[in-house]
């Protein structure tokens, strides 16, 4: 149990970064399709089970892994060429390491930190590795020895460097508010309320910093509308033009992990992390019986709504009727057994340890729900806006966001001194 609890944040880091990538690609494609009045990938199946198209992204990943590794013959620095995708992948992956997935777990007098790395660096670690990921882009673009790649990597690096300034300043004003660089302290701070009823979430305490941070993290992760680095209309694919197979796959995965990581940081900084509004971890533990009852109730309602929605909408062909039946039976069996387990536990009475672990699991799911909402927003924004021109990106970064960020620091400082 002890080892498992220590390993839990690592497993969650792997889940939230690597394992969500096929899911994110699927979300990206299906949401894009639905926004544009199309169906999106819905054919690929294993024995008639399509999982709404998730099988397609698994197939795509397998294709990338098993593809022949080809390196263009004009590449002189093969070492840098090969190290660049790994670098960007490692950097994006490591940014995840400091995100708290749940409150510190107190069990038998031991405290388990629910971050993969129990380091004191907190948000500084995130900034360091988010900044480092641009080195992968620069090295990749340079080692590719091609005009398109070098142009793409120059654009990306200039953009990331100029937006990092505003991002850092936005974080400074946050640190003034939260008075800590520990991400777990920041989340605990956000479980407070002020004036008795408004949750002290970052988005309410620091709306301007939230706006600046959201925009800059879109730019940091090179996602639309700031993806001029891979503007396919003018520079083919930007910095990964000369890459193929899994080397391209690593760039591709790293982009999604970076998106997931900055989404996780946004959840932690501005949307209360793993907390529910108005409820601290202690409240959840004391009222755990009521909480499990609420979970059963909402779970049942959600299950019935989902089954109804699936029966109406899973109508791709005559085979999908059988598919719907299989899904329905699986969902009903799984959720009924889960709910009866919870109901039995309520009846039998929870021990103290069970309550703590149960709250931890609930906080994991709250965190997951919040981070997937943010992924949805990322994807939604990507399929709404056209790409910024390069000079527009720079103008927005230096002329608008930087002064706003500095102004926000000044206002925050004045308010904090005034309050104290």
């Amino acid at each position, binding site marked *: 149990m002890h080892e498992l609890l220590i390993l839990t944040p690592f497993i969650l880091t792997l889940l939230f970064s690597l394992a969500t990538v096929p899911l994110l690609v699927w979300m990206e494609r299906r949401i894009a399709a639905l926004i544009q009045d199309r169906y999106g990938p819905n054919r690929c199946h294993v024995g008639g089970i399509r999982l709404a198209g998730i099988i397609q992204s698994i197939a795509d990943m397998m294709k990338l892994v098993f593809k022949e590794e080809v390196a263009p013959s004009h590449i002189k620095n093969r070492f840098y060429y090969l190290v660049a995708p790994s670098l960007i992948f490692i950097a994006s992956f490591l940014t995840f390491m400091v995100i708290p997935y749940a409150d510190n777990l107190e069990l038998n007098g031991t405290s388990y930190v629910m971050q993969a790395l129990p380091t004191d660096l907190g948000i500084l670690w995130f900034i360091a590795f988010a900044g480092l990921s641009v080195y992968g882009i620069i090295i990749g673009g340079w080692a590719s020895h091609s005009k398109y790649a070098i142009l793409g990597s120059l654009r990306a690096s200039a953009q990331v460097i100029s937006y990092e300034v505003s991002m850092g300043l936005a974080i400074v004003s946050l640190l003034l508010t939260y008075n800590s660089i520990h991400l777990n302290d920041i989340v605990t701070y956000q479980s407070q309320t002020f004036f008795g009823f408004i949750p002290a979430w970052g988005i309410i305490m620091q709306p301007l910093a939230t706006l600046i941070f959201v925009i800059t993290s879109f730019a940091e992760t090179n996602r639309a509308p700031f993806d001029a680095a891979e503007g396919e209309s003018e520079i083919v694919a930007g910095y990964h033009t000369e890459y193929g197979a899994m080397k391209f796959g690593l760039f591709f995965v790293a982009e999604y992990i970076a998106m997931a990581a900055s989404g996780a940081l946004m959840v932690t900084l501005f949307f209360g992390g793993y907390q529910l509004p108005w409820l601290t971890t202690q409240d959840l533990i004391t009222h755990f019986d009521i909480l499990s009852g609420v979970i059963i109730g909402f779970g049942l309602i959600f299950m019935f709504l989902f089954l109804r929605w699936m029966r109406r909408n899973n109508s*791709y062909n005559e085979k999908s009727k059988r598919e719907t039946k299989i899904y329905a039976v699986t969902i009903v069996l799984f959720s009924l057994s889960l709910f009866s387990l919870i109901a039995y536990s309520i009846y039998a009475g929870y021990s103290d340890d069970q309550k703590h672990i149960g709250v931890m699991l609930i906080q994991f799911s709250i965190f997951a729900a919040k981070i997937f909402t943010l992924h949805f927003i990322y994807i939604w924004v990507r399929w709404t*806006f056209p790409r910024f021109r390069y000079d527009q990106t720079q103008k927005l970064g230096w002329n608008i966001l930087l002064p706003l960020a500095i102004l926000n620091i000044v206002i925050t400082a004045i308010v904090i001194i005034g309050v104290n």
Partner: protein
Amino acid sequence: MGVKVVHRHGDTLKEKMYLPAIFAGMKVTLSHFTKNISNINDMQDVCYPEQMPSDITPRYRGVHRLTKRADDSIACVACFMCATACPAECINIVATLREDNIDEKMPQKFEIDLLECIFCGYCVEACPCDAIRMDSGIFSIIERERKDFIYDKEKLLSIKGAFGSENSHAK
């Protein structure tokens, strides 16, 4: 002549702030998303290989075909106009004398390399005899080997027009 002043957008404070326009755009895309996810059956979309498009008009430039005269002989007189007009140089004609007294010349060989063809329709415009047309309605060309994409005279003659038998002969 009066000068028409075109109003330029982007001057007002609201437009300079970007954000109202950004949220308006996001509202539009979200409304499409929610509409489609709540009832996917109403979506106006064609599941392509299973459902074929139904909106192909006579003007659609599909695979070429060679037309016939009213007596079912080839309409082409091997004048090379189409081969000359072709920007992709994908038409290869070898002319021969016509023995049946209907006309003077006919193609012995008439080949179109569909992998070279860019489907511009210049050959159809250039033809003085209405002998080559692109009204077959075929938009998807599938063969097993590269050499099979070179359609010869017999193949081109065998392709039927998709828009009624009254339109199938050369005018």
